């Protein structure tokens, strides 16, 4: 079972990402802080005696639910529940090459060069803006999968959807982000 120190260290490890993730959704700093505070309290009060390895998924579920609760209270729930069909026009499935978008010179060292290229050519703010622009369910799936490093099954559990939906949301999010970054790179 998680000790007080383990719980504290866990919360410390996730609190900044949790704040930013909430902020991407609600776009209100005070609201994002409230959501993270509520989530931390609920985790500690209800699941503080759970094993440490169960805390990440529990916390992500609570954070998602607290974010939904905020939207419900604001009667704007529909903005978080975008119908899947609404997202279908987001991605341009013309088969563009992600490696090209990332600026890979070759397949051996592409990751390093891609990261350097990405960091050099795009500001952090631009990336965050594109994340904010994603449809909510795509954004949630992308952030849980790649930022929180949940696997597909865990992401599906946290989002209350199927694994297939997670894969589709993530794929579309990546296509949308790649398209946006590609456009920015090609714009002088």
């Amino acid at each position, binding site marked *: 079972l998680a000790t007080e120190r383990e*719980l*504290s260290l866990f919360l410390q490890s996730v609190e900044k990402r949790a704040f*930013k993730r909430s902020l991407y959704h609600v776009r209100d700093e005070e609201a994002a*802080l409230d959501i993270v505070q509520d989530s931390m*309290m609920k985790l*500690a009060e209800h699941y*503080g005696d759970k094993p440490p390895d169960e805390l990440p998924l529990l916390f992500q579920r609570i954070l998602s639910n607290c974010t939904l609760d905020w939207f419900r209270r604001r009667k704007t729930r529909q903005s978080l529940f975008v119908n899947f069909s609404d997202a279908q026009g987001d991605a341009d499935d013309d088969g563009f090459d992600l490696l090209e978008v990332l600026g890979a010179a070759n397949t051996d060292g592409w990751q390093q060069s*891609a990261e350097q290229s*990405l960091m050099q050519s795009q500001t952090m703010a631009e990336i965050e803006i594109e994340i904010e622009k994603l449809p909510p369910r795509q954004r949630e799936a992308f952030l849980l999968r790649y930022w929180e490093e949940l696997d597909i099954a865990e992401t599906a559990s946290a989002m209350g959807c199927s694994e297939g939906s997670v894969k589709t949301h*993530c794929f579309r999010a990546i296509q949308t982000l790649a398209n946006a970054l590609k456009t920015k790179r090609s714009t002088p």
Partner: protein
Amino acid sequence: MKPSTAPSNEDQFGHIVASALSANLEQIPYEVQERLRAARMRAVAARRVAPI
């Protein structure tokens, strides 16, 4: 032992973007970081303890 599989281009792209987001976490204002710390301490103080 599971065979190792190379991450797809999509996965690699996703992790690179996530790395950029993580790198930007230190830009969170000090006041917000302090409020997060205070919230964490309150939560830990309210931690549920399993009955013995």
